[in-house]
């Protein structure tokens, strides 16, 4: 299986960022346009409001403009930019607590016990995701929606690899509890038992 997004060549990104650091607005435009769809896709899933998504992207590239000189190449440019977007989004989500949360769990319909149709599964996944703590949700989105590796997520979230794995583990456990008909594993049968 392939990663979801084409990896922009490191050299090209670094060249653009270096030009941004020199004050080249056309280079900033190129970076912005190169990353907009990718960031919008990620952010739309966690903050469906169009304005919020656009604001986070806008804030992200303002920071890129302001901080480009300080990029030292310790990570990929893409990881650096998505890390900035992650922190801005996290801050926005915390400020607007409940922004993407669905209704309370007890307001949800009874768990589905038959094989699910796609639309039903999609609804259940969306509602299960909405009940996850923000950091766990974002870890899952970075892996499944953005196609990032463990190491990249660790860089983006500024967390140890072990923390990334733990967040993913807890996210999966919580999803399993809210999606009992997801398939295969009985809810009482833990993978780690």
């Amino acid at each position, binding site marked *: 299986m392939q*990663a*979801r997004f084409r990896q922009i060549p490191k050299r090209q990104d670094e060249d653009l960022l270096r030009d941004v650091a020199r004050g080249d607005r056309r280079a900033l435009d190129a970076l912005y346009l190169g990353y907009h769809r990718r960031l919008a896709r990620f952010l*739309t899933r966690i903050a469906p409001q169009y304005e919020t998504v*656009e604001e986070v992207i806008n804030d992200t590239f303002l*920071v890129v403009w*302001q901080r480009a000189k300080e990029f030292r190449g310790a990570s990929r440019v893409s990881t650096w930019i998505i890390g900035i977007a992650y922190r801005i989004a996290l801050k926005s989500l915390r400020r607007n607590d409940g922004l993407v949360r669905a209704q309370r769990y007890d307001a949800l319909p009874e768990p589905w016990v038959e094989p699910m149709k796609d639309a039903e599964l999609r609804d259940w*996944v969306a509602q299960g995701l909405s009940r996850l703590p923000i950091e766990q949700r974002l870890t899952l989105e970075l*892996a499944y*929606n953005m*196609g990032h590796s463990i190491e990249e997520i660790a860089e983006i979230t500024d967390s140890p690899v072990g923390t990334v794995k733990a967040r993913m583990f807890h996210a999966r456990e919580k999803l399993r509890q809210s999606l009992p008909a997801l398939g295969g594993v009985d809810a009482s049968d833990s993978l780690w038992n």
Partner: protein
Amino acid sequence: MKQTEYTAAEHQDIGELLPWFVNGRLSDADRQRVDSHLRLCEVCRDELAAQHRIYREMSADAGVEHMPMAGLNRLRLRIENLEDAGTARAAPEEASRSGAPAGSANYYTVTTAAAQPANTAIRAVFAPTVTLSELQELLDDAHLKIVSGPTEAGVYSLAMSASPSVDWSLRRLRGHETVRFAESVVPASATGQGQ
């Protein structure tokens, strides 16, 4: 010798890697380890199937169309505004992880006010093809007058001229095809989303 059993530690270790087996981002070595374990472990195979279904749902296109040029124009305008105020290169507080101390530097976001020319109510960008007479006509229609501009980026600062409200003028402006961008000059405190 063919392996027929696995340890609990190996089971847990492999289990933690399954999401990245699903999204295709494991190293070759880890992928081979997971492959080998899956041949022996039914629990992990079931978990893998479940994760594949979640992955498929989460990676489905949300179907939302975004317009990058509109956002880019807003970004350009913000940078213009900040540079007018001499702060476009001020260091953000925290969003970048460069290790540089934030100090007393300012981090401007969409919700942060920038210095504006006196009386400026709206900043706008018009199509490069707009003629002077067309520009004057649409400004009259929106009850606005030019305070300054255009800047190098084509940004005009506009003040109200017998307009009932900024919102009213914005609506009039945005109704014209030649208006590429129009934004109210709003203090950060008015948005409720300051830093």
